[in-house]
């Protein structure tokens, strides 16, 4: 399948390009979220004295790590994919190609790199004595894959709109920051006043923080209904994103 081969080429190029030029190479993929986790842990654990909810909670650091890594993959994939079409304007103007590949490669490479970091941190937490349920890894991997589908949906939408409205890429970091704090990454849904709980469900990303924590740390898990809703939402957003992307695709060249 030529499109898949092309996608693999772009993913390979993307990964190599991001880490070959820097001194620390592939290590950077691990160092960056680690440093982020260290800073957040210091601030929240030592300054704010934050605690994970639940009596037998395994501590705040694993609680945070399990939501922060998926978020990093999600937000990074999204911000890279948003400019994927614009960044490859030179190519798009000269070569006929399935442009979906560019967006897909941006999302996939982010999820691959952060996925490896995620796995490494899980093993590290386990080594430090945190009771991470490694038996739930396949389930976590499936959840992670579903998250990438959700990210891809938004990515198609944003990448297409970015060609027409260039402000989107500039506003995106703020938007993502807001989104992160609106999601139960640093806190649990239970820490909010109860009347706000149902609003959390309006945030498609919220499901994933709870799903990862539920599966890997044994905190209150999602119901089957919640999981099915998440699948429907992820593929629904993918469908919308693809629809918008394909509708605007023939006109990209005119506006690049």
């Amino acid at each position, binding site marked *: 399948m030529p499109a898949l081969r092309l996608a693999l080429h772009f993913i390979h190029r993307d990964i190599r390009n991001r880490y070959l030029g820097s001194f620390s190479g592939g290590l950077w993929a691990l160092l960056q979220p680690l440093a982020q986790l260290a800073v957040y842990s210091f601030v929240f654990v030592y300054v704010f004295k934050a605690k994970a909810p639940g009596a037998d909670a395994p501590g705040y650091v694993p609680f945070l790590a399990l939501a922060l890594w998926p978020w990093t993959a999600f937000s990074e994939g999204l911000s890279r994919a948003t400019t994927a079409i614009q960044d490859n304007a*030179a190519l798009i103007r000269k070569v006929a190609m399935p442009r979906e590949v560019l967006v897909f490669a941006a999302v996939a490479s982010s999820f691959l790199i952060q996925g490896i970091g995620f796995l490494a941190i899980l093993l590290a937490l386990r080594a430090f004595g945190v009771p991470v349920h490694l038996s739930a890894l396949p389930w976590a991997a499936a959840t992670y894959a579903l998250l990438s589908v959700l990210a891809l949906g938004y990515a198609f939408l944003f990448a297409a709109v970015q060609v027409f409205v*260039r402000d989107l890429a500039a506003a995106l970091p703020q938007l993502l920051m807001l989104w992160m704090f609106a999601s139960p990454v640093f806190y649990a849904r239970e820490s909010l006043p109860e009347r706000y709980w149902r609003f959390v469900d309006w945030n498609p990303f919220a499901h994933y923080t709870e799903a990862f924590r539920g599966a890997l740390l044994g905190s209150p898990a999602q119901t089957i209904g919640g999981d099915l809703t998440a699948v429907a939402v992820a593929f629904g957003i993918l469908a919308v994103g693809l629809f918008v992307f394909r509708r605007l695709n023939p006109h990209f060249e005119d*506006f690049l």
Partner: protein
Amino acid sequence: MAARAQSETQVLVRTSGLGKAYPKVFHRRDRLRALGRLLVGRRGADAVRVLEGVDLRVERGQSLGLIGENGAGKSTLLKLLTGVLTPSAGSVLVNGRVGALLELGAGFHPEYSGRDNIALSAALYGLSAEETRAKLAEIVEFADIGDYIDEPVKHYSSGMSVRLGFAIVAALRPDLLITDEVLAVGDESFQKKCVRWMEQYLSDGGTLILVSHSMYHIQKLCRQAIWLRHGRIEASGGVFEVTQAYLAYHERKTAAQEVAHANATGTGTEFELVEFALNGESADVPALIEQGGSLVARIEVTSRFGREPVIALGLSRADGTTVYGLASDMDGRHPRRIDENRYAVEIVFDALPLLPGSYLIRAHAMDSEAMRLFCTVERGLTVRGESRELGMVRLAHAWRECVDAGSQRGAAP
């Protein structure tokens, strides 16, 4: 290869009523409005039409030249054929794999090395990693850019980019090769290499669409040609016919500007050129003759004081290279006095040996001593014919110790 042989008459490219309009985008607001319009499934309202009603048909094994002025829509048409652009009207149908070299560089990424860009182009064309590896040596050798192959493409000269781009397309051996002004950038030896390659490709049954401003290359490589003007097909057909019509059009355009200029440089009215007819035609249009036909130039000059003028005639190629020049005093001739203040000459060329192409022909009126130039009138001359000979004139010649090759490629009659 087998598929090529068995489907000789297969249509490779067909367009009907093909048109392209670019949206007018001036403000941010326009972009937002366009986005909204497109999302609900309507087309943008304001648009600049760059191509309209193009019907095209290219069969396997054909070679088509695309000519026209800058901004005539040639590149847009190529982009529509390759699928980079989406038509705003009409349809494009392309069978077979297309290898395209649009403008410079064929979509190279400036930060990556030549090798990486080869891999990208191959992946875009749909080759697997193994197939790419197999072709790599061939590409590197054809491009012949030395150690630059491992340098980022941003350090390449434009010639090197084209070398690499052409080398890649050549290695892919597409069913249809589309190139846009590639030959103009490479140096002499690379141009020759490309032309040789394209000739081989065509004789192997390949199909070519070539855009060039060089009529030499168009005539050498193409059998059919299309002249685009203001986004429409102005002429299409045999390459010689179309290129000559195109050159004649240019001739008219520049002649109109230059005659005005030339007339303005006359230093006085003591001698004035009042009539300059070519084959009896004195209207200000390029004279048209068949190759080997005869040309009669009639020139009349008024002389204010009745003195006899010296009348000169010069013939040059469109680019200004002089082909031939003569004057009445050189040949020891005196213009005939037709009345008190009027003199006339007729210069006759039987079987004019000029090769097909566009020429300028100038008549000059000078004083009796041929010391001062008083008046110049310039006209275009188009020689029509089919010939692959090079240069401006056919020199009388004969072949010996050889056999007739029976060339099918329109050898001179």
